[in-house]
Structure formats: structure tokens, C-alpha cells
């Protein structure tokens, strides 16, 4: 059997379709940013930007850029009706107290227990930087990870235990990859979807974590 991995656009659209009406969502910097472009128009989804904005809108036209209205990626943004501004303590209180329905983040690795590693490769000499990743991991009710399933060397990024420095423990609830979508459950990792032509056995062959379907 042969199969074609999902494109990033396809992954982003799958994530966007899974977000429910009325959800409050934080979209992380990097690959997850694509999700914003696929949010369905028939649902009201409220975007949180951790620098102090709820109800974030799309990017502005070039002539409507305001340097004091930016998102967490430091790019110009806009506000929707119903938006509000607040300070950093309040913004991260929202996370820590479990008010964000979903945080969507990239990852270097996710463990079968939902441990997340996405802030540091641990490489000596690298400048460490963490931003709000650990706060989102610790606080959001659901953490959706968006990543390629395999590294360029073909190693699974879904692992029994993370070898990269951790961002948070047991926080990831769902993993969207180019080959499959996984739910992290208390009973183990459940395959929610696979690309056409990739059998569960073949998928299991790529991933050193016991997989099942329909857990």
C-alpha cells in the first residue's frame, strides 16, 4: 500500500474543523498559525492572544496597521466586536485557572502520557527561550499538538518518554500529524484518524508507542 501524507493545510483544516462553536482558543506561534486561516465561518471561535487580548481578529490591511495592536507572535492584528484588552497577569491567570478551552502548539516530542517537549532541543550553546509555552501546557483544558509524526531522520516524535527537555507533564490531549491523529487517553494512545492507505499495523511500525483504535 502507498499513502500520501496530509499537507500542513489539511492538518490545519482538520484541527479547525474539530474546534467547537463558542470555544476559546490560543493558537501558538509557528505551524499552528495556519489553523487561523481555516476556522469555519459558521462557528464563533474566540481567539486568545497571551500578550493581552481576547477576541482577536484577522491580520489588518497594510494601511491599518497599529504598532500597539499586535498578537503573541508580535505581528499586527485586529479586534472583533466583543474583544477586550488586559494585562499579562490577567492573561496568564486565564490559562492557569483553566479558562482556555484549547491551546494549539507545535512540538519536538510528545510522550504517550501526554508529556510535551517543545521549548528546547537541549543543545549546548543554544540560547534558551520559553515564552508562554509552559503556561499554556500547564493551564489550557486541552492541548492540541500540531507536528509532523516523524523527524527528517524518520524517528517518531510520539515517544514512550520525551528525551528533550519537558514543557509540561501529561498535558497533551490530542496530536495532529501528517500521517495520523491521536488521542492521548488515560488508557493509552488512540488513533483517531489515519491517512488513506496507511494501515494501523503500518502506523504502529513507525511509532514506538502501543497504539489502538477507539479507546
Amino acid at each position, binding site marked *: 500500500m502507498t499513502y500520501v501524507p496530509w499537507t500542513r493545510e489539511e492538518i490545519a483544516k482538520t484541527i479547525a474543523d474539530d474546534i467547537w*462553536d*463558542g470555544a*476559546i482558543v490560543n493558537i501558538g506561534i509557528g505551524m499552528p498559525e495556519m489553523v487561523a486561516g481555516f476556522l469555519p465561518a459558521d462557528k*464563533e471561535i*474566540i481567539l*486568545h492572544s497571551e500578550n493581552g487580548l*481576547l*477576541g482577536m481578529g484577522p491580520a489588518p490591511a497594510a494601511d491599518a496597521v497599529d504598532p500597539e495592536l499586535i498578537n503573541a507572535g508580535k505581528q499586527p492584528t485586529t*479586534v472583533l*466586536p*466583543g*474583544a*477586550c*484588552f*488586559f494585562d499579562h*497577569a*490577567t492573561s*496568564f*491567570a*486565564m*490559562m*492557569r*485557572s*483553566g*479558562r*482556555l478551552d484549547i491551546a494549539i502548539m507545535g512540538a519536538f516530542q510528545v510522550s504517550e502520557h501526554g508529556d510535551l517537549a517543545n521549548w528546547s532541543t537541549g543543545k549546548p550553546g543554544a540560547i534558551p527561550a520559553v515564552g508562554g509555552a509552559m503556561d499554556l501546557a*500547564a*493551564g489550557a483544558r486541552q492541548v492540541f499538538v500540531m507536528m509532523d509524526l516523524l523527524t527528517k531522520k524518520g524517528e517518531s516524535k510520539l515517544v514512550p518518554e520525551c528525551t528533550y527537555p519537558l514543557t509540561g507533564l501529561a498535558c497533551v490531549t490530542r496530536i495532529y500529524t501528517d500521517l495520523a491523529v491521536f488521542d492521548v487517553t488515560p488508557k493509552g494512545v488512540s488513533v483517531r484518524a489515519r491517512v488513506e492507505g496507511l494501515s494501523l499495523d503500518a502506523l504502529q511500525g513507525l511509532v514506538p508507542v502501543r497504539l489502538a483504535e477507539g479507546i
Partner: protein
Amino acid sequence: MLSKVRSTAQECLADVPDGATVLVGGFGMAGMPSELIDALIAQGAKDLTIVSNNAGNGTVGLAALLKAGRVRKVICSFPRQTDSFVFDELFRAGRIELELVPQGNLAERIRAAGAGLGGFFTPTSYGTPLADGKETRVIDGRGYVLDYPIKADYALIKAHLADRWGNLVYRKTARNFGPIMAMAAKTSVVQVDRIVELGELDPEVVVTPGIFVSRVVALGAAHPTTEAAA
């Protein structure tokens, strides 16, 4: 579509179970969610823990809830007032439990729940009987007491205006405990003078972001409603 607007106070409180911990806003009558308290009395939940600055005045509101025998425990800073006879009688009869907390520690414990913290070291009450039995620690030469968050199932709050996302603005000193109680409860219920259209509240002046609010109901104003006052 996200809408936190409900039609009646009854609807807002239908699911309060026995044994719930309920934050009740207000300082004196300013910000007191009187109609929500009445609805809670009508709803019938019992064995409640009530967290509020005071423990009821006269025979209405909180005092009526206490009088109805529905409150197991009160957590507050100042239960003793000239007209707190309902609480006084229950307390003297040993029929209600009291946890007395300094007002600022009460506010900070509520805020800590709303900020997802596990506890904090406060200088207030260090060396006093209200710190008895609590963990203490000297940090940088100053004494502190470890206090824990007050997490609640419900918050009953009065604000001025809300939109359907639950964004709130308050009015004058009726703000008091509202913003922190909205943060701290699993389900925060807010009675407002009026619901406005989404977008009518300036994003700069929203005091409680809607993310902290579960249900809002418009019940009219208990203050002068001239344009100047609104």
C-alpha cells in the same frame, strides 16, 4: 454562537447542588447580587459554604439564606454588624461554622483560585491568632503565613453592564469582589442592570473579560438611572 445570556435568575442557578461552595459578591449593599440570592433561596440547595465579606444584614439576602438553614459554613472577614442578628443567633447556637479571614487575605485567596495558584505567602495575620495552625515562613527577614486558594463551584455577582460574551463593567464601589469572584468560580453567574450588544463595550474599559463569566441575566438597576449615572 457564544451566548451567556439567560432569561431568568432561576435559570442561572437551576443546577446548584447541595454542598456547593458559593462566592457571593458585594460589600455592604453595593454589588450585592440580591435577586440571585433570592433565586438561590427559591432553588433549594442546602449545606452550602458561603464566601462573602460579611454574613448578612437584616432579614433579606444572605441573612434570609442563612435563616432558611441552608448554609453550613461561612467564610468571611466581618460577620459582626449592627444588624447581623441572623448570623449571630446561628453562630451562638453552634448551628453554623465560621472561618474568619482578614479582608485582604480573603480577596487574595479568591484571586489565587482565579489565577490557578496553589497557595501564597501573605504577611497579613502573621503573629496573630488568625495564623494559628497555619504554616509560616520568614522570607527576606519578614514573616509570612501560607494561605490557600478559595476555589468555588459558583459565584453570584452583580455588575452594571454585560454583553453576550460575558464581558462586564461595574459601577463605582459595587465593583469590589466581582472581578476576582468571577475568576475563581467554576460557574460564575452575574446579574447586571442591562445587556448591551456585542461591541458596545469599549475593549479598553472591560473590567472582567467574558472568559471568566458563565451566565449573565439582566435584572435592572438598584441605583439612580439617569444618563449621567449610567
